[in-house]
């Protein structure tokens, strides 16, 4: 169970964004985790004691933000682990989820405005463009998932008291 101390830095390894997660259940080869991070404020470790567990709160959102990883490290329920995603994964995901639908929305709107010059036609074209863009997003997201670019990976077990700001 004890991990060997790592005193060297492998500069050839891909740079990762690290975060802390709790193991909430183990089903055979799969471990389900919940991220500790509650927001971008950096108060990740405070989530356990904030007491805000009501409907619509960030704490309640975490409950359905469970994700799974392969349990190759024999993780147990309740363990805190450090997980990582590649550095540019967030940017790729943001482009796929938001930039593609926005681009098609604006393109469809510009074409409709140029062709018809009417607010209602432009509005309808933008809605259609948005739906088409969401379709493209879905394809792009599937491709990213297949390549494993946005899947979180197990890095190591968290040290006692380690937070996502100190990892």
């Amino acid at each position: 169970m004890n991990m060997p101390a790592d005193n060297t830095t492998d500069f050839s390894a891909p740079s990762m964004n690290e975060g802390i997660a709790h193991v909430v259940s183990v089903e055979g080869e799969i471990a389900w985790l919940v991220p500790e991070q509650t927001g971008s404020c950096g108060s990740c470790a405070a989530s356990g004691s904030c007491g805000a567990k009501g409907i619509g709160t960030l704490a309640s959102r975490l409950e359905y933000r469970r994700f799974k990883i392969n349990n190759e490290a024999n993780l147990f329920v309740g363990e805190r682990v450090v997980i990582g995603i590649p550095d540019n994964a967030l940017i790729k995901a943001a482009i796929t989820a938001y930039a593609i639908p926005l681009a098609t929305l604006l393109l469809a709107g510009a074409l409709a405005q140029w062709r018809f010059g009417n607010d209602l036609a432009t509005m309808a074209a933008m809605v259609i463009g948005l739906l088409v863009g969401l379709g493209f997003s879905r394809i792009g997201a599937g491709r990213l998932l297949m390549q494993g670019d946005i899947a979180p990976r197990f890095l190591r077990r968290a040290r006692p008291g380690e937070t996502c700001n100190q990892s």
Partner: protein
Amino acid sequence: MKEYVLLMVSAALVNNVILARFLGLCSFMGVTTRIDTAVGMGMATTFVITVSSMADWAVQTFLLEPYALGYLRTVTFILVIAAAVQFTEMTVKKVSPALFQMLGIYLPLITTNCAVLGVALLLVEGRMSFISSTLFAFASAIGYSLVMVIFAGLRERLALVDVPRLFAGPPIGFIVASLLALAFMGFSGMSTS
């Protein structure tokens, strides 16, 4: 065509949402510790501002103006923005649960982002056409994202600098933000001739 370009440059740079209108300062200070989180927040906000401004324009034109309900504008727009954020959240979750796990955390922050409401109110005051108001909202959001990314880059460098103890953290961040605002004031001197 020229008027659309000028409208967008004006919204993104000259009247920048953060540095000229001082809206969205909470996310400006809170989400700019890393460039990638700033990009994630910026793109999510751009999407929500654009979609909600389209809906706000429709509500204003087809509901509030014809029935003289202007006094309900702020409340209605807040409702529309919350609905737009919820729509975005549901859509991203449906399109890709994996993307939702990565990006979903930014969406609740947008609901309370005053920049979204500010842009919607500004475009109503401007009495613009639908395409103009959408481009205005999109360009304002691009300006917001641009400043977020620039400031995140500066803060990543600041984290490596030996700052006097009293100025470490947010104080030096605010000083840098004020210098950035001064730099953006230079855009107000641009001429179209």
